[in-house]
């Protein structure tokens, strides 16, 4: 006897036809559907349903499930990239359009290359329609009397799968230098001589005043042009070193990003430090405030780095970034007493020679 199961939602109806095992109890009100013969998925507004056998159905529930997860998180895993070989594929067209592609060509079948492939079906779904499809699939998963061996398997996309999507150039960089997200940023940092490190004894009050100042220029910055002082022009030699990636030179912009960076790191630095020496980093920031790369200046062990939020704050390449966007570099010092110290990288390297030349008396 054929058994039919239906999961109906306003925009989508999933119909499964199959058989129960021969030895099942005939008096069973809801016999177990254990052998799937045909699966149909109807969508409102599309006269032709998508249909297939067991392989099609397994692929459908898996791909729909993965797609729903990436829809919610905005992060797609390597699995969805590998889905090319799947019978069912899901693609995002725009924020409200989702494409379901069914390629029910048997993998082993020899195909005549001259004929166009008629077995590819394509249906564009709105978000509400997609939700109904996900819900139909979930109602199937919840039904223990239909193909109980197929169950909902959810797990987060792992960091490793995410990392695999980063550019190859970056993977080639030795991990010992520390993680640095954009290859360009890493490259730029590579050419810069390691600067002399100043201990943060003196800068506590000074750094605070530096951190306060950005507020006023950002608030009224558009009206008043920035006052140019000799220290505002960056040192030419360093500039030429940095030229492979455009750097941000506007002092107002540098101050704005410095304030953003401070806010961002300070907010996330929640664990109380157990390290004894200050941790000094060079951090590259994009115009939108995203931390696109960083590099330890002094020697820092991974266990120590776990205590600070830089790895967490590093921009993860979910969307796309232009490779040649201008960057601003800062020296970030995590002090063992919990005080965060941030200065523009140029200013930091200029400070000592500048103060020397300013005191000729």
């Amino acid at each position, binding site marked *: 006897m054929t058994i039919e199961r239906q999961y109906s939602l306003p925009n989508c109806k999933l119909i499964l036809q199959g058989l129960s095992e021969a030895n099942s109890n005939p008096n069973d009100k809801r016999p177990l559907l254990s052998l799937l013969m045909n699966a149909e998925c109807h969508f409102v507004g599309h006269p032709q349903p998508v249909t297939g056998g067991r392989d099609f159905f397994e692929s459908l529930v898996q791909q729909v499930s993965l797609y729903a997860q*990436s829809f919610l998180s905005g*992060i797609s895993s390597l699995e969805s990239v590998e889905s090319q070989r799947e019978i069912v594929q899901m693609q995002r067209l725009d924020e409200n359009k989702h494409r379901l592609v069914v390629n029910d060509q048997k993998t082993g079948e020899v195909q005549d290359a001259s004929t166009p492939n008629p077995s590819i079906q394509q249906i564009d779904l709105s978000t509400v329609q997609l939700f109904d499809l*996900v819900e139909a699939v979930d*109602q199937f998963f919840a039904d223990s009397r239909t193909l109980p061996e197929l169950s909902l398997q959810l797990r*987060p996309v792992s960091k490793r799968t995410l990392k695999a999507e980063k550019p190859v150039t970056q993977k080639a960089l030795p991990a010992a230098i520390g993680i640095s997200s954009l290859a360009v940023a890493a490259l730029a940092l590579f050419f810069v001589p390691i600067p002399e490190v100043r201990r943060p004894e003196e800068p506590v009050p000074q750094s605070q005043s530096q951190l306060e100042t950005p507020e006023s220029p950002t608030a009224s910055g558009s009206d008043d042009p920035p006052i140019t002082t000799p220290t505002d022009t960056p040192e030419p030699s360093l500039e030429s070193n940095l030229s492979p990636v455009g750097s941000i030179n506007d002092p107002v912009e540098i101050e704005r990003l410095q304030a*953003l960076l401070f806010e961002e790191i300070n907010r996330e630095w929640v664990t109380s430090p157990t390290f004894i020496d200050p941790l000094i980093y060079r951090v590259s920031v994009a115009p939108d405030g995203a931390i696109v790369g960083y590099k330890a200046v002094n020697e820092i062990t991974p266990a120590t780095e*776990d205590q600070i939020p830089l790895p*967490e704050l590093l921009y993860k390449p979910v969307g796309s970034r232009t490779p040649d966007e201008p960057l601003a570099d800062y020296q970030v010092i995590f002090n063992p007493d919990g005080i965060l110290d941030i200065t523009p990288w140029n200013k930091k390297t200029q400070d000592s020679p500048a103060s020397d030349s300013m005191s000729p008396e």
Partner: protein
Amino acid sequence: MQVESTTTTTNPIILDSLPDFPLSDKGCPRRTRLQIDLMLLAIEALYLGGSEHMLALVSQLDLQDIIKNRVILWQLRSTNPLRRNSQRRPLSLIEAKALVVIISNLGRRLTVRNRQLLMDYEQMQKKQMPLNQHLQLSSYLERFRAHFRSRMNPRRAGVMVYSSDEKLDELAMDLLRKLLFCTGTNGMQRFWISLFDGEVE
């Protein structure tokens, strides 16, 4: 007799359907905290008196051990790094679970309205009609913008990207769509798992 510190072993059953993940002592990742609070913000914009409904649900679902009062609820939400008064405290797994249960439950109550708004939005986009002609849609967007601007710190990079009305409307619609996906048969689990995408080993 039970001691206060053992409360973690007697968590409400409803939270058991959400799996644990190994976390550092910094608690839930940044994106988790951000997404949870934004989703609650969308609910508030959709549902008048939303925060009162959240508190009512806390007692209905037996979550008082985790969210003792309104101040705690505010503190948990303020672990969102974009908040003006963002809290320097971690968000534990159990606290995040409680908030996700609340989101999913309130989301279910709002399913009918949410679906209607999303379908209407789509129609208006197709016909290129301005959204302000749709009373419910425009009041949702307006309330969302007001909530977002009053509570998020405009000096943070994550907030600056939403400086225009258009960008905030896009965010509001995006959250509305995601909220729908939190409501289904497995919506709560799906939402929970998605919060840790790219954050676990």
